[in-house]
């Protein structure tokens, strides 16, 4: 290593700093207001995103506790710890929590923090919408858990198949809470997708053309477009369900001309892409981590992007493989088998490229990389069992058995949770300014990895031995007891490992090693700013000349001149080439998104009980939304002044 080479001198290679006075002004401009008011009015993407991540992690812990309860009940045959009524609520809440309140939201929450830093922007596009999306997500989640704790937790499964979830077979308000919460939190997901897409396409730093955008940003762009097409399907489905239940429509009632299968088609048209919504962002995490720890760019950049886009398209073409047992025409099934098999190709291409990157790099071996290597092991296994499930004939044996439980946890935990933990270890220094402990990190990893396999591998066997899913008990003579006990012991190991992670976070927040801007020697833009980043992200907006700006020589110009420090101003660039286009004033902190979210929540909760709530509660929503968008005279005056300034 040659220190004299400016490319590799960590102090010199950072983007230029602003004058101290300018930096102070910038910090004052972009910070959230102080005090309790400020807490609710905050719109800085980092503030909102950290809250979002913490909230989703709390839901992850809640869902994990439910999983441990499930494993406790199933650890031995004929167990009487949890009766069928509570068990059905628990497994429904576990699935709903992990899918709707953890997996997709946390990917969006992390992106909302990282994307502006990665593309060289001072904020997310639509910062107030971002805050609103966070608040309705949180309130929707709290609403569902509040229902659960007053014994109104949904009990028809996270997939809520009709007619079981319909008015006749699920009387009471349990399923109504579920259906409204789904619509509600997915609304938040849609908004986050819009915010992320706009940020990526319009707020990139000058020079960051599409083919210089890093793979994580590509992954989030692809994911967000998928969200736009997938989530409306389930929102429609759950809205039709609630009208069936509330105002006696008959969308799903076969006796009155409705169709029970309509639900499954709508649900899985969302539900299968959902898996990729959860899985594609981690592909971006992995590319970032692999590049930083192999100390070289990821092999096959264009192929990786093609693979991401192909995966996104194919993800919409294979929902029927969840429905092979429903007696659909055979020819159609073969098409969906082929589609389900072929989606393995883009994933394989990515894995080959990462292996090639690692093999041709020089490896810096730290905890994040361990989680990535675990991803290879677990995801490949989950992918291969997915190929088995894609086959119609095999699926008729394996479907709705514990084999599927094993498969989906291998795919979702291997494909999302392991990379997510890797990402936490990787970006925690950026979020907090401190490193997570490496020693605890390794304990965390090994307990998680071994515990995971001990928990879920036996489930493959249980499925082949005929154990169906969603059963609260089983007779001893079935012979499933031993394997279930093993799985439950593994689950305890996973629980312990997550506890270790929390200990690690708590210790590091207090007394972790100070990270500095770029502790891993990584090459991308977010590592050029202080850790944690200043409120305005970049003291000066950088100009980008390559895919790894910190690894490549700085060319002129290095940054954008003339952006306002006293006003929330961003530079809007063109979609393809990121040529500077115009300057745009961004909204200031406001309490109205929060109040608007509150009004929306009242509408949704009210509509569980009476359709009239939609009418009456629309008024406060309209009022708060109007005030949200009301231009303030001082702001207009300021804007005019800033525009005429020389």
């Amino acid at each position, binding site marked *: 290593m*040659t220190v004299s*080479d400016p490319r*590799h001198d960590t102090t010199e290679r950072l983007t230029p700093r602003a004058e101290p006075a300018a930096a102070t002004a910038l910090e004052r401009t972009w910070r959230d207001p102080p005090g309790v008011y400020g807490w609710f009015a905050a719109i800085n993407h980092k503030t909102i995103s950290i809250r979002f991540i913490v909230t989703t992690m709390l839901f992850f812990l809640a869902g994990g506790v439910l999983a441990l309860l499930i494993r406790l009940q199933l650890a031995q*045959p*004929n167990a009487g710890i949890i009766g*069928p009524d509570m068990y059905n609520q628990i497994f429904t809440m576990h699935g709903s929590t992990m899918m709707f309140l953890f997996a997709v939201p946390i990917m969006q929450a992390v992106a909302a923090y990282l994307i502006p830093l990665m593309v060289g922007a001072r904020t997310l596009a639509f910062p107030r919408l971002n805050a609103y999306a966070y608040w309705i997500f949180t309130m929707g989640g709290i609403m569902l858990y509040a229902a659960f704790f007053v014994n109104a937790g949904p009990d028809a*499964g996270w997939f809520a*198949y009709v*007619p*079981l979830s319909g008015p006749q*077979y699920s009387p009471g308000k349990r399923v109504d809470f579920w259906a409204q919460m789904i619509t509600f939190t997915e609304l938040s997901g849609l908004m986050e997708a819009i915010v992320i897409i706009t940020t990526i396409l319009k707020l990139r730093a000058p020079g960051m053309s599409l083919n210089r955008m890093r793979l994580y940003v590509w992954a989030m762009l692809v994911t967000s477009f998928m969200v736009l097409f997938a989530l409306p399907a389930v929102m429609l489905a759950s809205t039709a369900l609630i009208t069936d239940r509330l105002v006696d429509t008959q969308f799903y009632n*076969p006796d009155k001309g409705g169709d029970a*299968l309509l639900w499954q088609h709508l649900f899985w048209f969302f539900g299968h892409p959902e898996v990729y919504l959860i899985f594609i962002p981690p592909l971006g995490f992995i590319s970032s981590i692999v590049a930083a720890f192999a*100390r070289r*760019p990821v*092999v096959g950049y264009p192929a990786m992007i093609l693979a991401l886009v192909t995966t996104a398209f194919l993800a919409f073409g294979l929902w029927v493989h969840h429905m092979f*047992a429903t007696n659909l025409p055979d020819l159609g*099934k*073969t098409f969906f088998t*082929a589609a389900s*098999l072929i989606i393995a*190709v883009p994933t*394989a*291409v990515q894995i*080959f490229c990462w*292996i090639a990157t*690692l093999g041709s790099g*020089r*490896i*810096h071996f730290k905890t994040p990389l361990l989680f990535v290597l675990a991803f*290879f*092991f677990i995801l*490949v*296994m989950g992918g291969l069992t997915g*190929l088995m499930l*894609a*086959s*119609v*004939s*095999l*699926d*008729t*044996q394996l*479907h*709705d*058995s514990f084999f599927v439980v094993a498969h989906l946890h291998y795919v979702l935990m291997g494909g999302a949770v392991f990379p997510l933990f890797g990402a936490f270890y990787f970006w925690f220094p950026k979020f907090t300014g401190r490193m997570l402990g490496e020693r605890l990190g390794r304990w965390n990893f090994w307990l998680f990895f071994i515990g995971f396999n001990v928990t879920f591998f036996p489930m493959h066997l249980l499925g082949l031995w*005929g154990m*169906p899913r*969603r*059963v609260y*008990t089983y007779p*001893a*003579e*079935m*012979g499933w007891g031993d394997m279930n006990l093993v799985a439950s012991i593994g689950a305890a190991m996973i629980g312990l490992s997550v506890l270790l992670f929390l200990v690690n976070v708590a210790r590091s927040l207090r007394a972790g090693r100070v990270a500095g801007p770029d502790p891993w*020697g990584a*090459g991308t833009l977010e590592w050029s700013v202080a850790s944690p980043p200043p409120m305005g992200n970049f003291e000066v907006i950088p100009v980008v000349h390559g*895919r*790894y700006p910190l*690894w490549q020589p700085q060319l002129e110009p290095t940054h954008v001149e003339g952006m306002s420090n006293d006003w929330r101003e961003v530079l809007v660039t063109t979609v393809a080439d990121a040529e500077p286009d115009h300057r745009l004033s961004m909204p200031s902190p406001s309490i109205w998104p929060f109040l608007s979210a509150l009004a929306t929540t009242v509408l949704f909760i009210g509509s569980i009980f009476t359709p009239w709530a939609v009418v009456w509660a629309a008024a406060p929503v309209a009022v708060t939304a109007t005030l949200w968008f009301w231009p303030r005279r001082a702001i207009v005056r300021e804007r005019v002044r800033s525009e005429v300034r020389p």
Partner: protein
Amino acid sequence: MEHARVPGVTSMQDALRAAGAQAGHIGDLWNGTLALCTFVFVAIVVATIIAVWCAPRADAATRPDTSSLDGPEHRIWCRIGWATGTSVAGLLVLLAGDVFTSRALARLPLRDAVNIELVGHQWWWEARYLDADASREFTTANELTIPVGRPVIVTLRADDVIHSLWVPNLGGKKDLIPGRTATLQLRADRAGTYRGQCAEFCGLEHALMALLVHAVPTSDYEAWAANQRGNARDPADAAARRGRDVFLGASCAKCHAVAGTPAQGRMGPDLTHLASRRTIAAGIFPNNRGHLAGWIADPQALKPGVNMPANTLPPDDLQALLTYLETLR
């Protein structure tokens, strides 16, 4: 509640121990798929280990190798083409296997088939043995008896919510969907009793919705079917007669049918030949006097959520009723 062992079950739901043609075809496909997938898995894991093992070690200060950014990567499309081609070839093998297996499954010879209509209820199975001659049809519940070596066409319907029929030793599962009809074809090639279970979540007692399939030689099957076609015999002794009166007088007859008596309820299982069944409560408890007594007195204690109400009968009436039920062979 401890589930007592149901005697005489040959196999408890094992998809890997095929006892019939359909499960056999799927088992063959499973073996082939497992071999191919294991090979791929080992190959990728070994490649990863070699890549990580052989690459030199570095730290955060190591100068990054950015040479690949200077120009197009060496033969990258060629290499990715190879990777894609190999993957597609492997997947085509799987697809071919699937198509051939599906064809084999669809081409089960159906001459001389037994036709059964199976209706899923929360949480039990109603089986109607169909016949061209309607007077030869009969209804039973929770247990199927089928002849070995003869194909069986099971027509699937659901009465309330979606259920799924799965007898792993005989073949794959198929859903019973309200408003739709599906068929499942089976053939048992080995005599024995195979357990099956509802596989689609169907509510509170989804876990305890089992079903036994007895595969018996054709002659035994014919004898069994002939017996099932008959009405319930009139009870011979006084105790059983009293039990019949209890049955008809209490609420039992509102939900249950016994052919040859005024009891024609359709809400619960047909009890005409109850005593010939091995289990009660949808394959969960052995059919004996003790379990029957407990079931009648407090079904919720045995199977929480079940739709049968508790019946508080005077002890004498209960004993008489049990005696009557035991005559329903």
